[in-house]
């Protein structure tokens, strides 16, 4: 049903995003609007704690507080070139919704964000932000009223509005060319890492890179320019929720199997009948029953390794970073930090954590849990 929408995008995206005009505008916005390059910070007290070297790639310092803006800036420029005056997006925690509403305000385009009704009530501050930015937020009442249902509804909108609308998907999921396109826009993360590592350590290659994975856009961006550097260990960390042996988990690669959803063939959380099951994680941003096909591929080929961290491990990791470095991470990013407990690291190892987002949006969860 979406053939025409996707066909236009598929035919034109590379020619547009590789043009000099586009690159120039994109780089300018990344620098002066998003605030790139984001710092690569040597976390000395956390390093001391684990007896190794730990660097944090500070995507949390981007405008709007996460890596999500890298992609929406790219896609809004693309939408302009395609002549689409109306933008739609899905959002879970609201970070991608805010990042989309932000670039729509920047370009004066109409913005409609679909958000599961449950997430609307869980993430009230982000809903208000989107509204203040001029976006229309539509609560989705179907299914379990979370990210997957918001994605279904955004796809239905696109089917209903194939001519004037561009759909800004927030992760490396969905039909081709989205997984490739979003990974390209996020690849600025690993591009910067290389030059920053060279400057700070004398080598552009670290021992390993860790990133959290829901759909997997920040991980795809953090891995991108290291994929051919086989000696660099790539580790994605999924949300185990209450444990991968419980029904309340979002660790797709650990508990899932191959299937087809949202026009991607990838690992999915599903029952024996091929019905998609509802994921669970404390972090709404990892609450997706699939994973980008890029990660399914890296998982099967063994190029990247995937671990899973439970809610409890994640909360402790967030607290540790907060008190060792004075940085409150997003719950999503804290999954990557939690994996530090699971690894054998040598003193001279160089570990880079992609700190994909800020904990501002999660303060209520943290305060409730730790009882401050």
């Amino acid at each position, binding site marked *: *049903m979406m053939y025409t929408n996707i066909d236009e995008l598929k035919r034109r995206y590379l020619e547009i995003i590789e043009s000099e005009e586009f690159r120039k505008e994109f780089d300018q916005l990344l620098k002066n609007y998003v605030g790139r390059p984001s710092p690569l910070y040597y976390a000395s007290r956390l390093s001391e704690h684990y007896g190794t070297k730990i660097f944090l790639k500070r995507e949390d310092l981007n405008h709007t507080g996460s890596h999500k803006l890298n992609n929406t800036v790219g896609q809004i420029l693309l939408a302009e070139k395609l002549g689409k005056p109306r933008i739609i997006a899905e959002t879970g925690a609201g970070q991608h919704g805010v990042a989309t509403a932000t670039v729509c305000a920047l370009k004066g385009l109409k913005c409609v964000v679909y958000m599961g009704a449950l997430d609307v009530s869980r993430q009230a501050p982000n809903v208000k932000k989107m509204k203040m930015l001029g976006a229309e937020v539509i609560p989705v009442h179907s*299914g379990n009223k979370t990210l997957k249902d918001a994605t279904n509804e955004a796809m239905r909108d696109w089917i209903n509005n*194939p001519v004037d609308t561009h759909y800004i998907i927030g992760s490396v999921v969905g039909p081709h060319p989205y997984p490739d396109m979003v990974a390209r826009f996020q690849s600025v993360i690993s591009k910067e890492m290389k030059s920053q590592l060279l400057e700070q350590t004398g080598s552009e290659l670290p021992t390993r890179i860790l990133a959290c994975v829901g759909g997997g856009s920040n991980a795809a961006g953090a891995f991108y320019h290291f994929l051919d550097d086989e000696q660099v260990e790539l580790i994605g960390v999924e949300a185990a929720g209450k444990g991968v042996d419980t029904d309340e988990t979002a660790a797709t690669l650990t508990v899932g199997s191959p299937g087809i959803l949202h026009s991607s063939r990838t690992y999915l959380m599903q029952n024996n009948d091929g019905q998609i099951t509802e994921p669970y994680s404390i972090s709404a941003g990892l609450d997706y029953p699939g994973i980008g096909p890029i990660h399914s591929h890296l998982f099967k080929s063994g190029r990247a390794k995937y671990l899973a961290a439970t809610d409890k491990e994640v909360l402790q990791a967030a607290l540790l970073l907060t008190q060792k470095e004075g940085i409150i991470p997003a719950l999503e990013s804290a999954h990557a930090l939690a994996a530090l407990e699971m690894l054998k690291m040598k003193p001279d190892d160089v570990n880079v954590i992609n700190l994909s987002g800020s904990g501002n949006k999660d303060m209520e969860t943290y305060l409730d849990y730790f009882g401050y």
Partner: protein
Amino acid sequence: MSFCHYQNELPSILKEKNKQKMNNRINQLFQNKQNNILSIYFTAGFPNLNDTIEIIQELEKNGVDLIEIGMPFSDPTADGPTIQQSSEKALKNGMSLNLLFDQLKEIRSSVNIPLILMGYINPVYQYGVERFCKKCAEIGIDGTILPDLPLDEFKEFYQSYFEANNLHNILLITPQTSESRIREIDKSSSGFIYMVSSASTTGAGKKVEDFHRDYFEKVQNMNLKNPRLIGFGISDRATFKNACDYASGAIIGSAFVNTLTHSTNFKEDISGFVKSIL
């Protein structure tokens, strides 16, 4: 995977194949009837788990030409609220592909009109596409409609299984589908072409005058080899008649599912619904 070997087949085998195709009930229907074909969709397992057979029998009894049996899916992205809700309820009731095949195993002892299974690719993929096609042939299913299975994927991975089991995979076109793509779909289609009335999900409830008359006329004048049925947004006699001016007939889904939702007596309500259309 390549399908070039079909070019090497002997003419006699091709003849045999054509004969087989003629035996497919969908082909027979379009051979015998060129106008006002009424196809009705309902979701298996809705409103109650075991209503499937009764609904099919009542539809045939009241003169419906073709039935699309919905295989419910957790994430029906091409469907509007009515079919989303019927699918959700059907799954809650316990419907699955295994159970549906079990319910349908005796269907050909009482029902003669063509039957099509409509749904999404993932449950079929998990069941095993080849196994699914064989099971359809065994039961007497004549075709499938899988809106999230693109033509290229179908051709590359699955077409051989469908052909081997005399099963038509019905493909969709929309007002945005280019002429060259329509030709390609026509070439790869068997049975009929499903013409989506307007750019929409199911049950959008557009008015007759909202339909893309120029799109209908364009396709009508393309001299396609396959007959066409128009679906999405067809809900009553007026929209049905309008669609029939441009195709061999039309498909009604959401409006019928709505009727079932509120029905306390299938016999009366199904008969009443079909009479209100024809």
